[in-house]
């Protein structure tokens, strides 16, 4: 049985790290003055390995990098939009570039993926991070869809000595996966549901929304959760998708700008696949209109209704 509790990904993630810190002395948490209940436990128990650099993302990444050069496993933690963009060049030069020459276990952990911070407005929306991070060579990119998966990503992060960007939702979520699934995180994706001639491909919180939509579609569509962009077993993903005639991609990200939709379109093109793709996401504009996440999803056509309509639409 899977754990049916509702929990934030960040608490699941840091609870796993807390256990690891009790066993291993080589783990440091570096925060840009951003907290979490689970982080409070780490701060109180391991004050010497919890560093608050202040509101300074460049410093957070640089300090985490220096510690990793000395062999420590580090987690630079903050809001996803700022951890991925304010210090992008630090990530590029000191992590992506350096990882080509030497192992570096630096984990950039961003909370607030996509439209998590709905009411905080466009400065806190994070619609660009997947594009930016998957661009960088050697950087592993994780976008888990539930908290149990976030905890497994935390477990895996302890053993992979490559830099990583891990985007977490800020809202409590329930688990999509049954115990033991997905079987292999190295695949980067999992087919959560089979059926029909259309496959919905989603990432992060949108996999949750997509699953709710599919519950109303009477088995007319399958569902693939892309929880990592590197590692990603592209051959296996293609073999999964080639069973379908249509793919609908769903993301809280800009359309046709290098995110999930671009990854899928590129994959299908490389295989000369005759599979139609319909991309759902945010169409080249920021969302200044105030509203909760459901409202913003409705504005962008990525709510359950929008997903169901895309599934029902005939192939072009």
């Amino acid at each position: 049985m899977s754990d049916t509790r509702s929990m934030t990904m960040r608490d699941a993630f840091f609870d796993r790290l807390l256990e690891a810190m009790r066993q291993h002395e080589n783990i440091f948490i570096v925060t840009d003055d951003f907290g979490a209940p689970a982080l409070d436990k780490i701060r109180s128990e391991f004050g010497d390995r919890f560093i608050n650099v202040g509101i300074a993302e460049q410093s957070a990444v640089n300090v985490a990098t220096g510690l990793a050069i000395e062999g420590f496993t580090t987690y630079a933690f903050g809001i996803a939009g700022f951890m991925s963009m304010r210090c992008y060049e630090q990530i590029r030069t000191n992590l992506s570039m350096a990882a080509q020459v030497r192992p570096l276990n630096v984990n950039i952990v961003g909370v607030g993926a996509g439209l998590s911070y709905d009411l905080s407005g466009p400065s806190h929306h994070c619609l660009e991070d997947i594009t930016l991070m998957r661009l960088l060579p050697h950087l592993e990119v994780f976008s888990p869809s539930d908290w149990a998966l976030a905890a497994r990503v935390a477990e895996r992060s302890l053993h992979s000595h490559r830099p990583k960007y891990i985007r977490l939702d800020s809202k409590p979520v329930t688990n999509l996966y049954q115990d033991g699934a997905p079987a292999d995180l190295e695949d980067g994706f999992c087919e959560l549901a089979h059926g029909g001639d259309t496959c919905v491909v989603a990432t992060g919180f949108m996999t949750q929304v997509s699953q709710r939509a599919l519950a109303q579609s009477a088995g007319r569509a399958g569902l693939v959760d892309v929880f990592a962009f590197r590692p990603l077993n592209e051959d296996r993903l293609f073999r999964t998708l080639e069973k379908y005639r249509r793919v609908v991609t769903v993301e809280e990200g800009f359309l046709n700008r290098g995110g999930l939709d671009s990854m899928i379109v590129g994959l299908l093109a490389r295989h000369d696949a005759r599979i139609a793709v319909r991309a759902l996401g945010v169409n080249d504009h920021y969302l200044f209109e105030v509203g909760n996440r459901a409202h913003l999803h409705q504005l962008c056509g990525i709510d359950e209704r929008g997903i169901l309509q895309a599934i029902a639409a005939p192939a072009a």
Partner: protein
Amino acid sequence: MANDVKEIADAALLARLKEKAAWVRRETLKIHGIAPETRIASSLSAVEVLATLYYGGWLRFDPRQPQWEGRDRFIASKGHGCIALYPILADLGFIGREELATVCKPGSRLGGIPDMQIPGIETTNGSLGHGLGVACGIAVGLRQKRSDARVYVVCGDGELCEGSIWEAVMFAGQQGLSNLTLIVDYNGISMLDYCRNIINLEPLDRKLREFQWDAVTVDGHDLGAVHRALADGRQSSTSRPQAIVARTVKGKGVPSLESDVLCHVKTLNAQQVAEAVGRLS
């Protein structure tokens, strides 16, 4: 008597440093002669600082084991200006002397900016403003490991306009990173103008002290002064990071560069290099 011995030893060391610095300056010019893409003026201002670090006994290293755990870490944050490192690395055996003829040539590992694929180079350099922050993380890591190794960083003064430098300055002071030494190659010129006309950093040592650093200003071409400042840092009993503001001359040793505010992007041709080397010989 003991003082006499020390003075003789110091005099011998200074003579050696002087000889090495002069050689490094000539070799740096020769590298520029075959690789005009290199930033010669910026490299020449740092020669005495680099020579004192590597030949003065302050930087611990083992060329046979560049990643030796007990080494002091050296970060060339002002990557453009660190071509002067190449002859030093070759002289000490980190790289082959014959490699000096390959700088910026196809297939060489020695580019216009020293990077971490080169033995003895710790980080990817050239993008300014990164080195001090990474050095802070290294310093925290060394402290956690209870290592007595130090971290030395060379930044340019133009580089200090980067906001990330000041994030690191504040962090190092707050954390009391007494195993960290920042050396500012304070040559007073950025790319387009004198630093004082762009962002005036004066008085830099006082600013750093306000951020909980120990800071001294020295003549960065005075080998004895640089040597003493490094000694003070190594022997300091405070819990503060140490900064040495090394006042230098951009293009030091080449009059046509020394007098030109735009010398950062100035290139010497083969004849000018030969003349400069001849004068310095």
